[in-house]
């Protein structure tokens, strides 16, 4: 039988592996530092599979396995805070945990090859393990403060991994930016937690919170939910807290694959999905969530149209897909007469999360493979025609691209379709239906844009004439410490910035340790959607989670959406083919026509700059002022106080003038005074 305490193993094993790697890695394990992680991830994965098996057993009344492992800390008093090691395995977390662990294992294997010969090899795997531990903790925790602990943990590990090559100033800046921006979200989340805690009778267990919070007033609920959503916005890079995600690509590509595609950024979606039964009581909040998701989706897609850095394109695509997920969650209205869309929306969002994790990880890993072969050049203008040079990577990338574009019968189609159906169903409700309608069309347009930019990247990189940048030839296949990261346009000074050499014989495919994970992920990325979607397995499984009801309702009114998304998707691919394979000149002319629009997109709508001026500059000035005050006023004051003993000493030093008679005089005077006080003291002080 499945012992509930085994749930605690799932985060524990990677945590132990992380501690082991960090402690023993630098001296003992060195280039073998990946073993603790791999073993722990495989172990936790097996435990989670066992857990799913136990969940689906018919003897279970409620579909959950709860394990309470003791108290971490607790306070006494009238408003107690009690945080225990409470874990809950229910369908939602049971879907996420194996996904996280499977992808972690695959990406770890990939990293063995990618990070080979890096001097900080043990540190990479150590932090990686801790990240996996924190992520699983986040997903499995039943106590909201424990969830917050996992939330913070993944934030810290993300920071450490983005800034992994900390010798590069750009990486440092990116890491700091990521941490700062997600911090804003974290503060919101904490405030939301506090509001819920104080409003729901000072409990911290999530199911109890959800139940009791339904009794709160509308404004309270809106505020608490909004604050929770701010946390989700920060972590999942929604507008306007999205600015950190593209810069996070400074980290190693496997890190981007795991953290910024599949797991950490989905934590926000998970949070909102879990609290959806509560948030659905506030339709305004749901609308807000959906709208922000929609803005993010279209914004990211527009920016991704013109980017030249492959990893950046993938980052914006992640952002866009996360926007989709939030749009889906926002469609979880329960005020439609007849039925509630909560479960359907939740399942749609989580299903898309699931499929997206696989194909986005696949895309990032293949981008990593490309980078590895091309000497860490990722500029699409400098590479081309890699179909023949990197066959396995090509297959991988194509699979991922097809899945992302939502082409039948690959996985992206099924999950995206569910989302659009949910949105359309929500638009049949009493109020705000117009907004949901607009969002549905927004989703469709974004789907088309997604297909376009994905295949633009594909065609630019893998079709056309073969272009190999010079870095690929001189460095070969091994990792280079000083060259890691985004290194193309700013690299050479005296060469033509788009310098390439058309010699295909020198660059070659990545080693098998890197291509094997790619090939493992290909069928997953392609087939997962079909496996779980139309077969209703996902709905059955997730819908049976406590708090939700499986919804096999009739959504045939939204059938047209499926067709439309297919049309948009294929259309996008066709346009991309046209512009980048058939008639290359057209792209240039369109760019000229678009003009300022193109620039706007290329410069990310200047959002970074705007936010810098609005927020960062005033803080910098404040910091400078405070530092100046500190330096001029307080430091001087403290120094002056510090100089007092020396000054006093200087005043007294001339007493020691070396003259014997002076000393004798001092002695005699002292003696006299002493005598006077001794003899006449009683009289003097009467």
């Amino acid at each position, binding site marked *: 039988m499945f012992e509930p305490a085994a749930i605690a193993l799932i985060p524990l094993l990677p945590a132990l592996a992380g501690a082991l790697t960090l402690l023993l890695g630098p001296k003992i394990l060195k280039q073998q530092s990946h073993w603790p992680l791999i073993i722990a991830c495989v172990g936790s994965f097996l435990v989670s599979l066992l857990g799913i098996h136990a969940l689906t057993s018919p003897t279970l009344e409620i579909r959950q396995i709860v394990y309470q492992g003791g108290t971490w800390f607790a306070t006494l008093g009238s408003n107690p805070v009690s945080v225990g090691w409470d874990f809950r395995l229910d369908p939602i977390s049971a879907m996420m945990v194996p996904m996280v662990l499977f992808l972690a294992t695959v990406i770890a294997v990939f990293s063995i090859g990618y990070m080979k010969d890096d001097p900080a090899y043990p540190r990479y795997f150590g932090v990686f393990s801790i990240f996996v531990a924190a992520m699983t903790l986040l997903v499995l925790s039943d106590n909201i403060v424990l969830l917050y602990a996992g939330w913070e943990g993944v934030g810290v590990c993300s920071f450490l991994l983005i800034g992994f090559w900390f010798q590069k100033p750009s990486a440092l800046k990116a890491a700091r930016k990521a941490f700062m921006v997600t911090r804003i979200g974290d503060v919101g989340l904490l405030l939301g937690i506090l509001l819920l805690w104080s409003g729901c009778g000072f409990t911290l267990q999530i199911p109890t919170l959800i139940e009791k919070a339904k009794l709160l007033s509308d404004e309270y609920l809106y505020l608490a939910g909004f604050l929770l959503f701010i946390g989700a916005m920060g972590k999942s890079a929604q507008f306007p807290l999205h600015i950190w995600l593209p810069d996070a690509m400074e980290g190693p590509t496997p890190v981007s694959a795991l953290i910024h595609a599949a797991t950490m950024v989905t934590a926000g979606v998970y949070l909102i999905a879990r609290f959806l039964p509560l948030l659905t009581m506030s339709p305004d909040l749901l609308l807000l969530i959906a709208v922000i998701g929609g803005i993010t989706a279209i914004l990211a897609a527009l920016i991704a149209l013109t980017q030249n850095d492959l990893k950046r394109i993938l980052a914006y695509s992640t952002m866009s897909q996360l926007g989709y997920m939030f749009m889906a969650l926002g469609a979880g209205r329960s005020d439609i007469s007849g039925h509630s869309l909560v479960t359907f929306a939740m399942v749609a969002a989580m299903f898309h999360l699931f499929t997206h994790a696989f194909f986005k990880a696949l895309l990032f890993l293949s981008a990593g493979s490309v980078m590895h072969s091309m000497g860490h050049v990722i500029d699409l203008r400098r590479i081309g025609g890699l179909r023949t040079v990197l066959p396995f990577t090509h297959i991988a990338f194509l699979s991922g691209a097809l899945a992302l574009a939502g082409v039948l019968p690959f996985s992206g189609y099924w999950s995206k379709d569910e989302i659009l159906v949910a949105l359309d169903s929500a638009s049949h409700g009493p109020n705000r239906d117009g907004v949901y309608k607009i969002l549905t069309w927004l989703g469709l347009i974004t789907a088309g844009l997604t297909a376009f930019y994905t295949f633009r990247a594909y065609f630019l990189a893998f079709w056309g004439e073969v272009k190999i940048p010079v870095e690929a030839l001189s460095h070969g296949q091994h990792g280079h410490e000083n060259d890691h990261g985004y290194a193309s346009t700013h690299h050479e000074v005296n060469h033509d910035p788009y310098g390439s050499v058309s010699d295909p014989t020198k660059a070659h495919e990545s080693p098998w340790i890197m291509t094997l994970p790619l090939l493992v992920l290909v069928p997953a990325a392609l087939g997962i959607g079909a496996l779980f979607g139309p077969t209703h397995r996902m709905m059955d499984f997730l819908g049976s989670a406590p708090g939700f009801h499986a919804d096999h309702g009739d959504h045939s009114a939204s059938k047209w959406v499926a067709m439309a998304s297919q049309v948009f998707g294929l259309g996008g691919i066709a346009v991309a083919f046209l512009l980048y394979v058939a008639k290359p000149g057209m792209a240039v002319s369109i760019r000229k026509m678009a003009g300022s629009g193109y620039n706007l997109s290329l410069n990310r709508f200047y959002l970074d700059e705007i936010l810098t001026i609005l927020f960062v500059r005033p803080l910098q000035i404040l910091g400078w002022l405070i530092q100046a005050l500190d330096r001029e006023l307080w430091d001087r004051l403290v120094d002056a106080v510090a100089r007092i003993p020396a000054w006093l000493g200087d005043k007294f*030093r*001339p007493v*020691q*003038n*070396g*003259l*014997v*008679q002076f000393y*004798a*005089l001092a002695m*005699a005077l002292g003696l006299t005074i002493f005598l006077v006080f001794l003899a006449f003291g009683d009289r003097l002080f009467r």
Partner: protein
Amino acid sequence: MIQIMDLPPGLTHYLVVGALLFVLGLVGFLARRNMILMFLNAELMIQGVALNFVAFARHRGNLEGQGFVLFLLAVAACEAAIALALILVLYRTQHSLDVSLWQNLREEGLEPILDEEPLPLSPLEEKSPSLTVAGPGPAQPEETSHV
């Protein structure tokens, strides 16, 4: 029975004299710069103390005070010997008996204290007798009178 020291001059008188001698010795010790004179002033202080002891011995009717004065004499003799030896050593270095020349124990970085006020010019010493210049005397005018 009449106390011996109740008759004038009483004990207190002798003690006062002893105290004044002591104080004068102290003043001299602190003020004079000649090492020999400093030491003599110290001896003056000891004289005052000795007087005190003898006065108390007389007052109390036993001779222990006087015995102590003898020891005081012995100690003063030893002190004189050692002090003179030290003074000699110091003199050999500086060729002066001025104690203010020895300021080596002062704080580092301080300037030595030197005499600033010039001494008033002492009246010229009387000329020590000197011989007349040797050699033939000055030409004398012939004596006019032979009477």
